[in-house]
Each structure stands twice: as C-alpha cells, then as structure tokens.
C-alpha cells in the first residue's frame, strides 16, 4: 500500500484499505408503505413515492430499509426506478396497514465529499474518494450473505442477539418470478385457465424482519395471482442476491 491507511476488524476483514470508498448517505427518512396486493388487484395507489435529488441521477444508489415499528414479523419491499433519469423509490409490505411506515437510508457508492469539522478522521484513496470519514453517517455492518433467491429459496437468515435498529440493504429490484403452474403446451386461444384450474403467481423480493426470533432474511413472497388471465409462461426465478445488515450511526 503506497498511501492511506489500512485497518482490519477482529475477523481480519479490511475496514479501511486506502482503496475502496465508503458509501455516502444522500437521503433518509420515513415513508408510508403500500400493500402491493391492493395496488395490483384492487386499484390501490402507491402511498408515498420518494424522489431522490437530481444531483444523483447518474449515481448508483444503495437503499437500506427497516420497519419503523420493531415488533413481531414485518417485511419491506423496495422498487427503485427512474423517471426522466431521476431516481424514485416506492416501498411496500405484505404486513400492510394504513399507518405502517418504513425507515429508509439511501447511499451512493463513491464520492469525494468530506467536510473538515476540526476533529476526527478522513481517509482518501488515490482518486480523492473518501475511504472513511468519521463525519459521515456510517453503516456499522455486522453480517452479509450471498445466496440464490427464488420463490422457494431465500437468502440468509442472518441471526443477531437483537435486530432492533438493524437496517438491511435491499439489493436488486423487486420482481423475482412469474410462475405458471400449467403445462408448457398451454395455448390460451384453445385452453382455459379457469376450466383447468391453473394459476399464475407473481413473486417479489422483500426483506423479512423477525423481531421475535431476531433474524433478517431476503425472500420472495407471492404478492398477486390470477386464475383467469393468461399473461405468459413461467419466467424469472433463481438469481444470486446479497443480504447485508447493520446499524446506521
């Protein structure tokens, strides 16, 4: 290492290495969630859309979430998308109630922004990007896992002595799988889903927080189904996703 500072944690993992930049918080707050099922099947609307500043239109964003009320078992889904190149976020839950909210924190991957507040520690890499700043909101990550996510497989779980205050990184996007339980030879112009008792189900990824048993996992729950309208065959399915959990300080 020709410059900078290297530090490791107690697992010999590089925390600061003078090379990779620390994420920078650019937006945070509380958002009211929608019921995905209600929105799709009952004409509901997105309860709240979060607009990310246009200053970050060309940045990659990382969205951390957690339920506001930390009790029982709750799930949070995120749809991140762009309109006119501006990032927008919409949150949903299958534990929907009109008063349920989630806390979110949006980070960008790399930046050179660091303030000099007269104390603490700023470490830069050779590109002038901040490797660590004690003046930044930090994700004190504790665990991470990589695994295959599908309608029948989940990523994690990550167990903690307590998951109170833990955020999870929502990697990827929402739609995981559209599953048709009929034959590949099904022909909608000749066959009837209703008469043959067939269904199409849509599965979306979500972060599942279990405050009773203190674990967090990523899974893909069924959010919508139809037994009458043939949209197409099974598609999507198993892909690798990453789950990261930690506290923001």
């Amino acid at each position, binding site marked *: 290492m020709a410059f900078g500072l290297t530090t490791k944690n107690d697992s010999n993992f590089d925390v600061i290495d003078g090379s990779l930049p620390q*994420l920078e918080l650019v937006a945070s707050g509380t958002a009211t969630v929608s019921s995905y099922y209600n929105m799709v099947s009952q004409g509901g609307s997105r309860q709240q859309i979060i607009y990310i500043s246009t200053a970050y239109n060309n940045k*990659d964003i990382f969205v951390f979430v957690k339920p506001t009320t930390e009790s029982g078992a709750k799930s949070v889904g995120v749809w991140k998308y762009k309109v006119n190149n501006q990032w927008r976020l919409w949150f949903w839950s299958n534990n929907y109630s009109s008063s349920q909210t989630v806390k979110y924190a949006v980070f960008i991957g790399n930046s050179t922004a660091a303030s000099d507040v007269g104390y603490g520690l700023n470490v830069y890499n050779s590109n002038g990007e901040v490797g660590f700043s004690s003046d930044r909101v930090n994700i004190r990550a504790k665990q991470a896992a990589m695994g295959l996510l599908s309608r029948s497989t989940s990523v994690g779980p990550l167990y903690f002595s307590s998951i109170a205050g833990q955020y999870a990184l929502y990697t990827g996007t929402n739609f995981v799988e559209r599953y048709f339980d009929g034959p590949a030879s099904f022909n909608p112009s000749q066959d009837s889903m209703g008469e043959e008792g067939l269904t199409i189900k849509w599965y979306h990824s979500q972060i599942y927080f279990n405050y009773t048993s203190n674990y967090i996992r990523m899974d893909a729950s069924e959010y919508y189904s139809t037994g009458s309208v043939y949209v197409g065959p099974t598609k999507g399915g198993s892909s690798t996703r990453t789950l990261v959990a930690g506290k923001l300080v």
Partner: protein
Amino acid sequence: MAFGLRVWDANGNIRLDTTDRLVRYHSTLSGTITQSSSPITVYVNGLRNDGTWGFSNDVPLAGSYSSTDDVKLEFHSNNYLKLTIQHTNSGNFSYRIQVFRA
C-alpha cells in the same frame, strides 16, 4: 483494544468499532448481453462467495410484469459473475451491476 480502529463522533458515539465491517463500493459493471452471446461471464477481480462480497442490480432480472425478457444473474465462480438470458422478445438485455464489499 488489541487490534483495529475505534472512532467516536463529537458526542462520544462510536462511529466505527473493531467488530464492524465497512460497506465499501467496489465497481459498477454494465453492458449488453445478447441472445446469441448468452451466457456471459463478467470478471470481478477478487470476487468470492465468502460473506464479504456482494452485488446489486438496477435492471429487473425478471423484466416487467407481463414482458418476456428475463435474465439469470449468478455468482459463477471465484472472480466471475454469470448472466444468462432465459427468455427474450427483444433479443438483448442491458445490465448494470454494482459490486461492493461488506
């Protein structure tokens, strides 16, 4: 403290501790996969499935609600991710993947 770095803020709160991991941005991978080139592997130097690497994608792998485009994204082997077109109408798929350490 036998190892590592502990950092406090001005109020005495710990911002970084010896048991923490710092989520750090590694790189962004982008390109287009076509039906004729599928599957492809994308090189990420050092990538491992060891609980310290991760990645995220912006483009819905399963396409939209009713479209037929969808792509499978996998950790393939050390240093490689793999993208495979499973169904497509358009014949190609633009991907954008963010790699990070955690």
